């Protein structure tokens, strides 16, 4: 009787906490690997205890130099990057960077990659043994140097094999991050789920290219780079929707999220959490803003718990 006339209860704070793959996050907002350094770079601007998780730059077994410059190029609604996975290596991370992150109560998800399946396994084992690491995110968008440089994540068999191997070596939650540069992303998603992934994150960048018309050279030294930013969001929402339908494991949505409404699109199609990438470069406090705006959205819409929104897409 009174339901239609009673205003929503504004005194109750909406619940933003999400649980998936053995992780408990205070909210579903986390950075995308490669846009947040090792976390400490952003602490002058952002309280790490306000976001759901920290996701580090991708780590390899040995330090990696990265690509020559120019490494970035702005495009309409996005940016291309070919950083080349420059990183300090897994051991230096554990020794020099992880202790700082352990001061915060926020779970640390460590992104990693390898040039061979064996390298993947070795990095993963070291991270699995490090107490401050809550979960592992495996980047399978790298060329497999032992098999002609074919990207692990574009070959369902190679993806399945490398995920199986890592799965057999680690106990911590294993998130596998998918490349969108495939014909049907559901095939890769099912392959990594069958191989033992606890969760899937998507999308990594879309490959792209830009040309300087005066010099007639590619604008990136690497010629080809990964496209990120607001322009890729519809592609990412579509793929997230497709993967949520195709697998049972939880999904983390990534791609062009710059505002709370962007995050909401991914949650509504069924993502359990989301990652904010390029937007961190533009506003170092954007994730805290998105968390605040998500809460405001829930309050305004009378949603008591954000989990009500996850997978609530009306078709």
């Amino acid at each position, binding site marked *: 009787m009174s339901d239609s006339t009673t205003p929503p209860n504004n005194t109750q704070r909406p619940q933003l906490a999400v649980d998936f793959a053995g992780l408990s996050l205070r909210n579903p907002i986390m950075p995308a690997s*490669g*846009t*947040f*350094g090792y976390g400490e*770079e*952003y602490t*002058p*601007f952002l309280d790490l205890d306000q976001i759901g998780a920290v996701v580090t730059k991708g780590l390899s077994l040995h*330090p*990696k*130099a*990265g690509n*020559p*410059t*120019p*490494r*970035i*190029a*702005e*495009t*309409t*609604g*996005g*940016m291309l*990057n070919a*950083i080349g996975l*420059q990183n300090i290596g897994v051991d230096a991370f554990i020794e020099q960077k992880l202790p700082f992150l352990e001061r915060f109560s926020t779970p640390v998800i460590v992104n990693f990659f390898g040039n061979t399946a064996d390298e993947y396994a070795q990095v993963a084992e070291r991270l699995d043994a490090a107490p401050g690491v809550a979960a592992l995110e495996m980047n399978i968008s790298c060329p497999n140097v032992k098999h002609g440089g074919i990207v692990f994540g574009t070959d369902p068999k190679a993806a399945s094999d490398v995920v199986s191997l890592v799965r057999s070596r680690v106990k911590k939650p294993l998130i596998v991050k998918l490349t969108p540069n495939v014909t049907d992303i559901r095939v890769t998603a099912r392959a990594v789920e069958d191989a033992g992934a606890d969760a899937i994150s998507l999308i990594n960048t879309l490959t792209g290219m830009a040309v*300087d018309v005066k*010099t007639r*050279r590619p604008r990136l030294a690497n010629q080809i780079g990964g496209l990120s*930013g*607001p322009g890729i969001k519809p592609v990412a929402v579509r793929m997230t929707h497709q993967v949520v339908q195709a697998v049972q494991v939880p999904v983390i949505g990534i791609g062009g999220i710059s505002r709370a409404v962007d995050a909401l699109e991914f949650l509504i199609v069924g993502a359990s959490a989301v990652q904010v990438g*390029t937007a*961190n*470069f*533009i*506003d*170092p*406090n954007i994730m805290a803003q998105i968390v605040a705006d998500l809460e405001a959205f829930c309050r305004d819409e009378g949603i008591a718990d954000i989990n009500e929104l996850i997978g609530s897409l009306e078709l």
Partner: protein
Amino acid sequence: MKNYRTIVLSNQEISPGYFRMRILAPGYDAVAQAGQFVMFRVQRSLPPLLRRPFGIFRTGFLAPDCDGMPAKEYIELVYKVVGLGTEIMQDLHEGDKIELLGPLGRGFDLGDPAQDKILVGGGIGLVPLYMLAEKLADKSKVRLLMGGRTRDDIITVTEFERLGVETYVSTEDGSLGEEGLVTQVLQRKLQKYPSARVYACGPMGMLDAVQSICATNRVALQVSLEALMACGVGACLGCVVKGAGHSEESPRYLCTCKEGPVFDAERLDWTRLQEKSECGGCH
């Protein structure tokens, strides 16, 4: 170092294609060092997607609008219109809302006051040298060598003169000052003042020549570099330069935004800096 929303106080063309913008910027005067920069964003605008880095020309205070109010603290940027970002900037007016992240990076080392200083600026590269001149001019003898393609590229020189800086202008077409390159002037000045310390900012070609002149003359040099950057805080790794001793096997990349933009010349790998694409100025 912080990020805030603020407003433009003024924005004027000072030479064809060159603009001077004052921005309300509380807190900068006390902390900003000569050579530091800001990441500038036109609010709610897309494009440009990314912020643009700009060297701080100076900081200062404007008289309050009415008695009893605090003075307005500002920073001044001097920029050249070279691309999408600066094309949008040139149309901003007093009161327009923008976002400012800074002050960022490592500034100049002021060195020994007893030592003479030579500042070498190429075109828009002059910008970070003004605040340096302000800090140096009280205690040291400062000479500015300012080079440009034409006289339109010679900006703000009278402001350096007001600080007591001796200025020497050169243009490639001879339309103002000596005809030729600023590096020729540097050669002569170093013969006359061999114990001077040199600071330089400008196009990569100019910096490379300045570096080789200073190395030959065994003179200490600090350079301020420009680079494409997405974040300005050391996270994106888009703005790296190769450091001295860099090799594929033991890479030594330095972040221009965080470990620079000012570097002691000997920290950089000059044989490889030229591999970078020619700097077109801050966009």
